[in-house]
């Protein structure tokens, strides 16, 4: 339903490709006494993180660039993701399209993904193949070659990707329209995959300009997890990435337009015969972990867990179980953004109920939490659930690489990441109530309705799809 990240190859098709593309909201981990990850820097400024897990003779190798869709030049939406695809073309050493084939011949799997804040590339291989994939990844950091023909063919692939992900799916269209409305000024308004008309104009020069500026060791983080030690990674990294000069042009500060105060709630209606069922969606602008006051993002994680996660949540119990006005209801908090986060809530109307009822009940549940807070039982279960998710995810070395990579690329420290469960444990019922009062502010929200057929609103009848926006009082 949401595009958090857009990637080169559809992961849903094959059990062979095991990576999870859509990142979890966690940016988590353990008690500070025993750091799980080791960190060092190469002379050229490249940050390196190693997470040892010796249970299987396998490693996950990732490079995270501190650049994403929100860093794109105006009018060139989609260039970060387009470049991610083009990184699989050629260098002096790698023939066109050979990168993934070489990894496959090594018995490895590879892929890449782009989000608003980062672009990441990874391979999973037997541990004795690590040196080879590191040298290949380092090579394409600076030696990419592109021809016009390759670029134009790949542009068609991306237009098809957009049709698959967005245009063939009314929920995805509404989500894109809601993001575009949630931000007045910040580029998170623009979809990661790009607007179709802008993708259609992207060319080789756009891609290379973006590449030459942002792809450099001092703008990248290397994360290796699995059956490998710090000393070996240091040696291999110095022999590969360490040979690449840094680029002084790319700054440490990622300055983007700052949102002005948001003073008006917004409402969208998308009518689309393909919608199937009427559904209600709400996005709130919220702080992210790296922008929040201490403890604030953790409180939001706990709040949204209590409010909207699973069948014991407030929204589900009220809308689905008690009032029976929705067939399902839920939500999530994205706290991993560089500049801001988002709380998303949704409900699908039950047969015979309408979205006015659904919206009113969601607002009543939120107001109740803001006024009366949450119970100690709810607080305990929510903390347990968040922490348990962390534990179960830690079973998987790819998840570990992702957790550290994502945290570091938006500016968290390893300590921040590993201290997360303890920080969750410190959240009090009062903190949760305060988060509901402060962050679930209707003036900083967008409400979206997806309707299978036009209701009596004259502004919403259209053959295929229409969107209307209006401030609400």
């Amino acid at each position, binding site marked *: 339903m949401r595009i958090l990240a857009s990637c080169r190859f559809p992961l849903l098709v094959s059990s062979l*490709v095991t990576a999870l593309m859509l990142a979890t909201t966690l940016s988590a981990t353990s008690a500070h006494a025993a750091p799980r990850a080791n960190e060092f820097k190469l002379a050229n400024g490249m940050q390196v993180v190693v997470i040892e897990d010796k249970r299987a003779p396998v490693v996950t190798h990732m490079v995270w660039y501190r650049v994403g869709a929100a860093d794109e030049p105006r009018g060139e939406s989609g260039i970060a993701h387009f470049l991610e695809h083009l990184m699989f073309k050629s260098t002096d050493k790698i023939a066109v399209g050979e990168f993934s084939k070489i990894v496959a011949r090594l018995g490895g799997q590879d892929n890449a993904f782009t989000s608003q804040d980062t672009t990441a590339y990874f391979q999973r291989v037997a541990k004795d193949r690590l040196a080879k994939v590191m040298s290949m990844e380092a090579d394409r950091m600076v030696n990419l070659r592109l021809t016009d023909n390759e670029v134009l063919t790949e542009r068609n692939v991306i237009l098809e*990707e957009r049709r698959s992900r967005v*245009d063939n799916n009314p929920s995805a269209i509404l989500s894109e329209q809601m993001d575009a409305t949630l931000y007045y000024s910040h580029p998170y308004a623009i979809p990661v995959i790009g607007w179709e008309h802008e993708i259609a104009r992207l060319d080789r020069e756009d891609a290379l300009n973006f590449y030459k500026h942002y792809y450099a060791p001092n703008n990248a983080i290397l994360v290796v997890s699995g059956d490998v030690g710090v000393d070996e990674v240091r040696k291999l990294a110095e022999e590969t990435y360490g040979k690449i000069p840094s680029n002084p042009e790319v700054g440490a500060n990622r300055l983007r337009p700052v949102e002005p105060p948001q003073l008006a709630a917004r409402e969208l209606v998308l009518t689309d015969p393909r919608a*199937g069922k009427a559904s209600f969606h709400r996005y709130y602008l919220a702080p992210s972990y790296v922008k929040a006051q201490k403890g604030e993002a953790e409180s939001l994680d706990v709040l949204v867990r209590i409010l909207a996660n699973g069948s014991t949540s407030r929204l589900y119990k009220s809308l689905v179980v008690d009032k029976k006005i929705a*067939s399902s209801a839920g939500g999530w908090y994205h706290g991993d953004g560089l500049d801001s986060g988002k709380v998303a809530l949704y409900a699908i109307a039950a047969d015979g109920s309408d979205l006015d009822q659904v919206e009113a009940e969601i607002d009543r549940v939120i107001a109740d939490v803001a006024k009366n807070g949450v119970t100690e039982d709810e607080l305990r279960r929510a903390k347990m659930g968040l922490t348990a998710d962390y534990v179960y995810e830690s079973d998987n070395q790819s998840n570990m690489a992702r957790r550290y990579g994502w945290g570091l690329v938006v500016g968290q420290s390893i300590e921040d990441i590993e201290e997360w469960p303890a920080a969750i444990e410190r959240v009090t019922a009062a903190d949760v109530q305060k988060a509901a009062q402060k962050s679930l502010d209707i003036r900083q929200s967008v409400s979206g309705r997806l309707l299978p057929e036009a209701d009596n609103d004259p502004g919403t009848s259209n053959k295929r799809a229409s969107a209307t926006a209006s401030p609400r009082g």
Partner: protein
Amino acid sequence: MSLLRQAGLHVRAVARVNFVNLLAVFFLLNIVALSRPAQAMDIKTVKSASGIEAWLVEEHSVPLVALRFAFTGGSSQDPADKAGVSNFLSAMLDEGAGDLKSAEFQERMEDIAMRMSYEDSRDTFYGSVETLSANRPQAMELLKLALTKPRFDDDAIERIRGQLKASIVYASRDPDRVAGNAWYAAAFPNHPYGKPKDGTLETISSITRDDLEAYRSRIFARENLKVVAVGDIDADALAKLLDEVFGDLPQKAKLNSVSDVAPPKKGSLIVTEMDVPQSVAVFGLGGLKRKDPDFMSAFVLNHIIGGGGFASKLMEEVREKRGLAYSVYSYLSPMDHSAIFLGSVATKNEAIAESLDVIRAELKKMLETGPTEEDLKNAKDYLTGSYALRFDSNAKIASQLLGIMVEDMGIDYVNTRNAQIEAVTLEDIKQAAKRFLDLNDLIVTVVGKPAGLAPRG
């Protein structure tokens, strides 16, 4: 009321202990340094006193246990006029059991940080449970209740019915799902495999508590049960657990007989109009069953055709050379009573015909000339070299082993599988291709507003 409150207090006390356990898990994860090469993985067979067998991989470095199990059954055991019972049941097993109503049951699961989920395929009903080892007794108690005494309360049934109906409505607007269902309907007319696995609005509306209970009591039995445990548990404890959790199930399942079936030997093109910019096509043929002597050869061939991502022919021709699609792939799906080779592509309406032409040409080439020595070597290098990647976490080991059990490939399969792939020759592949790759039989279903597609066959 007071009993409930007591139960609540008990749970709270337990939960506090558990939080400490969770932190202990972080700590242990930090210092683990055990080596476990996939090749040397020690898979034990465990037999309980009552005769239930399971496979076990012990991994005591992390205090977690992953349990995966399966009952032969799945949607092909749905009553003829009630497609979707199996899927309905898979959504009901955490909706209350024994004395615990839905919310109480789910809160108990959360209190002990237990994960439990169910899903069904056409032939199999799958269960998955993960728990901290300290909470294993409580988790197994809940699992046993779910399997043996689900409540099926009216309000829970109606709630899940509403969700299933909504998901069927969404699926009916999703070009991928519509194309897939249309393919199975065309390939298996008058057979359970041809019905929509999750049912229709009509069948879901008609399913009652008795239908769910009848399915559960017919299918959940010891003789058609497969179990795998991975993690912090030893053989003795697992043997006891098997009897505790599954021992009360009847010995014999009452499976309806399902006839063996093959897709018609006659190609067809079925277009379903939908107002979307991109058409989705599903294409397929009869395939080879898992125990067919040519299966491994067909498996390697499929990897070369469309199973190998960017190393596959379809990806090369459709996406890399022509930019016609983001996604194109194929796979072999052996079933208990049939076998298919299936693939899919999505291309804008104006060009879907070209994508399908390119795919046909590649399939024809694979049948007539076959892959090269280099194609074969590359495929073997990937398939054998990447096998270890499927075993790098407890959860993945458990899923892999359960798959091997369900397909009845034997406990030694993990050790012999790569040698079976290495043994495949070009001649074997040609032989296997002749067995199934007949383009005259290709069934194609397309959803969208495709231009320039003429019905064939």
